[in-house]
């Protein structure tokens, strides 16, 4: 079980006039095993939302709870996948994946088994002994996802995980993520600025306003997905062709554009 709740969250950075308000009146509940994507104009504080669940930042007012417990710091029950991968360059692929298990005190044999499973899940066979620098960006992000998944975390936090990848790799990774999420569901908070990605992956999409970020709209994609049977299509482009997909993608686009044009004025 892992329910994430934001209650009246406000977050400001800096102080004494030099600061700014990043987030205001954030109220959101993410159900167990639900996949929620947050989209919003850049600088709207969507990454800050994720960082508060991770325990890297703390709200200025209000509370962020995971399973009813206030978040007081980072921990392996809330695994993070970073946009910059954040692998340890001096550790091999399997050492990177194994570190969290070692920290948990998992026995060596059990550890090796689980690392192997994670390697298989992410299609990293044959690269166990490689250093991150020897891998492409897509492969590096696979390692980072494996490093997060191997912990069997209650919550998976992903901060624009595919933002640094080229378009093709990105698509493959999105399809893989859907495959993994269906097989092995977790509570996922997924931060992105890519609208298609959000609609394709998420059960619910949260649209945020420009700074100070507030929740503008929450869209239930899961009911659309079920009603329109998106899951029978294996390929992302087939889903993206569906009328229901196009409808919601355009809806979210418009909503975001309103925010952006407001920002420019």
């Amino acid at each position: 079980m892992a329910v994430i709740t934001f209650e009246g969250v406000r977050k400001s950075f800096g102080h004494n006039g030099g600061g700014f308000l990043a987030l205001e009146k954030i109220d959101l509940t993410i159900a167990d095993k639900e996949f929620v994507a947050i989209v919003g104009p850049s600088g709207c504080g969507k990454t800050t939302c994720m960082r508060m669940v991770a325990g890297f930042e703390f709200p200025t007012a209000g509370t962020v709870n995971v399973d009813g417990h206030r978040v007081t710091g980072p921990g392996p029950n809330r695994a993070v996948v970073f946009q910059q991968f954040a692998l340890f360059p001096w550790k091999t692929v399997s050492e990177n994946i194994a570190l969290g298990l070692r920290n948990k005190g998992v026995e060596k044999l059990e550890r090796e088994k689980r690392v192997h499973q994670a390697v298989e899940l992410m299609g990293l066979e044959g690269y166990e002994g490689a250093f991150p620098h020897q891998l492409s960006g897509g492969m590096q992000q696979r390692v980072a996802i494996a490093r997060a998944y191997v912990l069997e975390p209650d919550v998976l936090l992903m901060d624009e995980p595919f933002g640094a990848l080229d378009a093709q790799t990105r698509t493959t990774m999105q399809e893989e993520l859907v495959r993994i999420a269906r097989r092995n569901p977790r509570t996922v908070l997924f931060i992105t600025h890519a609208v298609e990605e959000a609609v394709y992956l998420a059960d619910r999409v949260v649209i945020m306003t420009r700074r100070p970020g507030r929740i503008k709209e929450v869209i239930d994609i899961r009911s659309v997905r079920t009603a329109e049977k998106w899951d029978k299509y294996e390929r992302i482009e087939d889903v993206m062709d569906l009328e229901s997909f196009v409808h919601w993608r355009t809806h979210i686009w418009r909503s975001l554009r309103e925010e952006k044009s407001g920002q420019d004025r």
Partner: protein
Amino acid sequence: MKRRYAIGFLTIATLAIFWFLATGPLALISPGRFPSPPDVWASLKQVSTKGYANGLLYQHVLHSLKLVALGFVVAIGTGVPLGLLMGWSRRAEAIINPVFSIIRPIPPLAWIPLAILWLGLGDAAKVMVIWFAAFVPSVINSFTGVRRIEPYVIEAARMLGTPRWRFVREVLIPAAAPLIFTGMRLSLQASWTTLVAAELVGALYGLGRILNVAQQDIYPGMIFVGMACVAILGWATTRLLAEVETRSLPWIQMARA
């Protein structure tokens, strides 16, 4: 790569031939000011077999090498941890930095009189001066190495629940390692510079002692031998350190390849 070595070799060979001709057959330079190759050879033979300035060449070399090694180890043994600590903890930096900032601009050689006053002409004074000179680059570079770690790497380690000592060993030190090695290399150079200077001022053995006595004896050939020994040892120890670096940081070699 081979071409570069060949060019380097040619340059040195040309210089050597010029040296030989200028001091010998062409008589462009007075041997009283600049020794000829045979002079240097004779001096080398003298100090190796009969001895000079209280000892044989190998005794001087070993003595200097021992002091450099000792001073270097003490310097990096204190400097690297101090730099890492200052890099990691803002509080430690706030406490240590003022003292460090006062000591840092003092030229290391300015410590020599005090060191001799406190510890005499023996080894301890030299180790102390080397320490003061050589620990500064290790501190600064280790400090910078920690400060330059990408914040998300630290966050990843925290997210994985990495306990403190494992974090230091497996994240902090390897992340800072390239700059730690840069600091150690500069510390090694500082060790040699300072040792020779300290031995020049006052010593019973060592390469600086050879240089000092040779200067008083107005003996250019021997001065050359002393300088050449320092150059060779400095080069060899730097190579050794570079080798240690290559072996300790395999992931960096991979990244370059």
